[in-house]
């Protein structure tokens, strides 16, 4: 039985993540208790909402240090959407905010001017395709996923990772290309929501679950 801690910092609906974990045979628990995080075999940092508010809440709940320590242990860690963005150094959402700084990089707002004269809708809400950056997906939960597969996105901000080697997928929104997922060692994080991406998204959870197994 693999215990997965889904970190609850009051931002967004965690139930889809919970159900997706259950669906692939994991034993998920939603909690803001650092002890539970520490004791789990794997952890997920989900979230939807504003970067600054998220960091403040994480601080208030005394979760920042526990998360960093957890990642240091080498146990599997997945960040989703806001959880993906928080892993980076800094965001410009509603002023400048420091993130967890696990990876170097900025979080910026989409500022796309339309080519064909229509409105560019922000946030991006809907399905979009993921493509390879040239780094192998083999050791990540993306193994076996088709190039160009569709995933579900909801976001107004995107991440610019400094290290090119960790970039897994790129996505194009209104002709603008950005990084939609990263993988390094035990940390896998996606801008999109695999738990909202139908069967292919569930595959990602399945792969992630299998890789937890292999790890330890």
């Amino acid at each position: 039985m693999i215990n997965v801690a889904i970190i609850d910092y009051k931002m967004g609906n965690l139930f889809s993540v919970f159900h997706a974990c259950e669906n692939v045979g994991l034993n998920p628990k939603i909690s803001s208790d650092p002890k539970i995080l520490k004791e789990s075999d794997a952890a997920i940092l989900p979230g939807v909402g504003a970067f600054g508010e998220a960091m403040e809440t994480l601080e208030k709940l005394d979760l920042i240090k526990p998360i960093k320590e957890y990642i240091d242990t080498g146990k599997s860690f997945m960040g989703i959407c806001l959880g993906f963005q928080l892993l980076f150094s800094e965001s410009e959402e509603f002023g400048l905010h420091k993130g967890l700084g696990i990876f170097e990089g900025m979080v910026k707002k989409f500022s796309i001017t339309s080519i064909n004269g229509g409105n560019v809708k922000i946030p991006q809400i809907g399905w979009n395709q993921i493509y390879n950056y040239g780094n192998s997906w083999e050791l990540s939960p993306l193994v076996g996923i088709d190039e160009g597969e569709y995933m579900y996105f909801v976001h107004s901000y995107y991440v610019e990772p400094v290290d090119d080697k960790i970039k897994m997928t790129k996505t194009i929104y209104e002709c603008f290309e950005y990084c939609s997922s990263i993988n390094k060692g035990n940390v896998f994080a996606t801008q999109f929501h695999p738990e909202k991406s139908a069967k292919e998204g569930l595959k990602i959870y399945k792969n992630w679950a299998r890789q937890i197994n292999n790890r330890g």
Partner: protein
Amino acid sequence: MNHRIIARLDIKGPNLVKGIHLEGLRVLGKPEKFARYYYEMGADELYFQDVVASLYNRNSLHDIISKTAKEIFIPLTVGGGLRTIDDIKMVLRAGADKVSLNTAAIKNPELVRDASHRFGSSTIVVAIEAIKQDDHTYLAYTDNGREYTGIEVVKWAKQVEELGAGEICLTSVDNEGTGIGYDYELIRMVATSVSIPVIAHGGAGSPKDIKRVISESKVDAVAVASILHYGLLSCLNDENFNTEEGNIEFLKNGNQFTKITPTTIDEIKNYLYDNKITCRYKK
């Protein structure tokens, strides 16, 4: 961008229902069953609307939301009778990803601001039910197309965006359920006046209409009901019946269609693909 095809299910109690002009509660079957089929067949999202919640002042979709959330892994929007922050919380907790507000939003616009702030803009959809007036203006109605508010639709849409809503679902009550096509003018007016995504709802009779509303009226997504439900109905077997409650005469007798061409999600997306409308589709 990839235009979304959202399967919309109007629900009353245990039944999937389908009206015309948001009126009439003809029973078509079990919503869980239809939802599951649409998920399997490639729907981009699901939208559950409790059509009598405002009428009876009750919220009763929690069971089907939970059931759906456990097995269906695409976004689920839930609307109907959500009046307070607590109502929204309950529905999200039951498993919904987004909530749709209409009556409560018009009565108390600050609720939209409050909810967007608390739950995130992208969680809040505001539904606008538009009815064309004699002077050709469009006004917003509440309570499933029943109550007059006097509020002009474009003005309200802009206000909704300012209040922080993530999306707008625009229903043309005049066209809804008839299969005569969308109200392209109305939808275009609203879609081009806001920079949040707009979902068109009401009137699709065939994939052609869907293509037209996307390319002409510049919407980002469509919510369809009649053409999918009547299409699926012809494939399902008899155990679909729920004989306890509701207008099941149609199910018992079967019927002819006039302007609605029953279709499938695949047919819709195939048609869009062939007509160069981007959507989530692999040929």
